[in-house]
């Protein structure tokens, strides 16, 4: 039995070990977020030039290191542009963006890819993980995209792709959020639709009650099952040899009864015998504090321990 348990434990550990590194890296949360193919009046690179750009977004709520992932425009060549190692800027902060210029000039720096996007035709762009096989994200930029228009997700890291023209409600947002939020919509909604807090109270109290009711029902069930099991164990422990009649009734040891008996004996005899164990009932007096005072246990059920011979 022990062998089986240890084998299962080792198998589980190995399973965890094989799964954890992949999820711990969380590169699967890297997203293509916005792309511009013909850049006449948009973002300028550090050399003062304009070229096509690709914005990536870290959808994690933790920083993400993207060095050694691959950017490519060729399905047949997934390792076309490896993001270089050793650049501190390749660590994208949580829920933030980074822009690569697709200018075919990788010698200009980390954020200049070895390929260019081609105007007037569909451009497929993909991100591959460091193994060069696992596709993390991909998008096809339509050929119909006009100069200075971008193709972007409706929300950062999620939602559909749509053409953005740069109009008032159609911002082009390289290296910043695709949706510009100036307020917390959740709070705005509560302020607007639940100004007196009645809705919040009903919802929240329902949830609090449901959670504790669930726990309550669960422990009614567990208590019943536990009671039945302990009753069975007691019957088994107290059962007489085969052929002899079983005891009719098995009762729990009651702490109160035991305490009452011990106190009555103490009162009656007014002395202890030579036993080592003495029941002492003293008032515990300590300075109150919510932290320290919980050390008082609720109940100590005296246990029968067979006397050693």
């Amino acid at each position, binding site marked *: 039995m022990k062998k089986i348990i240890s084998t299962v434990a080792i198998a589980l550990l190995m399973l965890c070990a094989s799964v954890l590194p992949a999820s711990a890296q969380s590169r699967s949360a890297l997203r293509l977020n916005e792309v511009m193919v013909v850049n006449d009046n948009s973002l300028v690179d550090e050399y003062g030039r304009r070229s096509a750009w690709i914005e990536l977004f870290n959808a994690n709520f933790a920083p993400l290191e993207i060095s050694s992932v691959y950017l490519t425009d060729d399905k047949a060549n997934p390792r076309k542009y490896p993001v270089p190692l050793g650049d501190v800027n390749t660590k994208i902060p949580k829920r933030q963006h980074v822009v690569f210029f697709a200018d075919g000039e990788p010698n200009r720096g980390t954020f200049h890819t070895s390929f260019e996007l081609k105007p007037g035709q569909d451009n497929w762009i993909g991100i591959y993980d460091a193994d060069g096989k696992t596709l993390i994200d991909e998008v096809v930029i339509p050929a119909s995209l006009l100069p200075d228009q971008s193709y972007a997700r409706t929300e950062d890291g999620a939602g559909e792709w749509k053409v953005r023209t740069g109009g008032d409600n159609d911002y082009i947002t390289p290296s910043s959020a695709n949706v510009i939020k100036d307020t917390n919509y959740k709070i705005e909604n*509560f302020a607007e639709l639940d100004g007196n807090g009645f809705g919040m109270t009903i919802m929240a*109290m329902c949830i609090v*009650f449901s*959670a504790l009711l669930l726990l309550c029902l669960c422990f009614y069930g567990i*208590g019943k099952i536990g009671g039945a099991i302990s009753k069975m164990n007691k019957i088994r422990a107290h059962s007489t040899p085969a052929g002899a009649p079983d005891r009719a009734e098995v009762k729990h040891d009651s*702490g109160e009864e035991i305490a009452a008996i011990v106190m009555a004996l103490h009162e009656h005899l007014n002395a202890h015998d030579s036993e080592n164990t003495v029941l002492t009932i003293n008032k515990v007096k300590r300075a109150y504090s*919510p932290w320290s005072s919980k050390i008082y246990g609720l*109940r100590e059920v005296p246990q029968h321990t067979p006397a050693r011979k």
Partner: protein
Amino acid sequence: MSFGDFLYNNLAQFWSLTGFANAQFGNFVMLAVGLFFIWLAIKKNFEPMLLVPIGFGILIGNIPFNASAGLEIGIYEEGSVLNILYNGVAAGWYPPLIFLGIGAMTDFSALIANPKLMLIGAAAQFGIFGAYMVALAIGFSPDQAGAIAIIGGADGPTAIFLSSKLAPNLMGAIAVSAYSYMALVPVIQPPLMRLFTTKKERLIKMKPARAVSQNEKIIFPIVGMLLTCFVVPSGIPLLGMLFFGNLLRECGVTSRLAKTASNALTDIVTILLGMTVGASTQASQFLTPQTIFIFFLGFMAFVIASSSGVLFVKLFNLILPKDKKINPLIGNAGVSAVPMSARISNNLGLEYDPSNYLLMHAMGPNVAGVIGSAVAAGVLLGFLA
């Protein structure tokens, strides 16, 4: 420059850095508040473990200094020692550590033996949402109202955790208010308990709770964590640590860990939490009209929470069989001021019947209140963060 001028200039510059040169009226008010807290703790024995660190923290945080000198000494100056210690409050990682200790200290037997008492712990959370409605009516925004209302949970760490997420600028006032009212529970609750109960109800004797097996005690934190966190994942930091601490205590094979969590770790975090919360109440941040409203709302929250617990028991008794009635005096214990409110139930019960010990029964709703307030905090965080 003569030597005399040199000495004068340096001494004048030094004077400009001293507390005397930078003192304002607000600083002295807060210093008086800090001294009052320390006096309450030492002379009156009111929550000394909390009020001494908080009171001394108030003194530390309100020593006037020249903030523009860039000495990196203030609690709100990035990189200062106090700021580094304050990070546990601002980023909200002290409260879950305190919850770990609470879990390792708490015996949930009374609750496991009589699970229906959990509902009293749920009902008392109405104090939070009642105060939320009042806070909205006064003019606070929903996130601020949620952060203030959590005072009604009567749980300092939960209040600090939630306010650090929803309204960091109000956290000092909320924390001081929460701990002040927790110290005043023996003053606030008894009149309400008497008001809402009849003499006959106060004499109800409850059956002794059944014995709880070790297995049940081990299953409780595991199932409790899974169920509550599946319903309210935003409560994971608090509920996860609470139940984890309780598993350390009950499993029987990690007594060293349970001992550390319930003693050394809790003591260390309590010192840091109390001191930095106190230090965060700088006069410029604390002495505002909002603070008065927060103290008023905190009082409202405690009153509503205590009353709703008692009234819920009365309501519950209508559907319970005659031999299973609950004494409404344990309803106040639904707030999570453990174990003070349970002791109040017991003391009041003994006042009317010297043989009616309610402590064991009151501990059920009391620890359910800890779970309930953490769930309520998770709900508010989920809705408003």
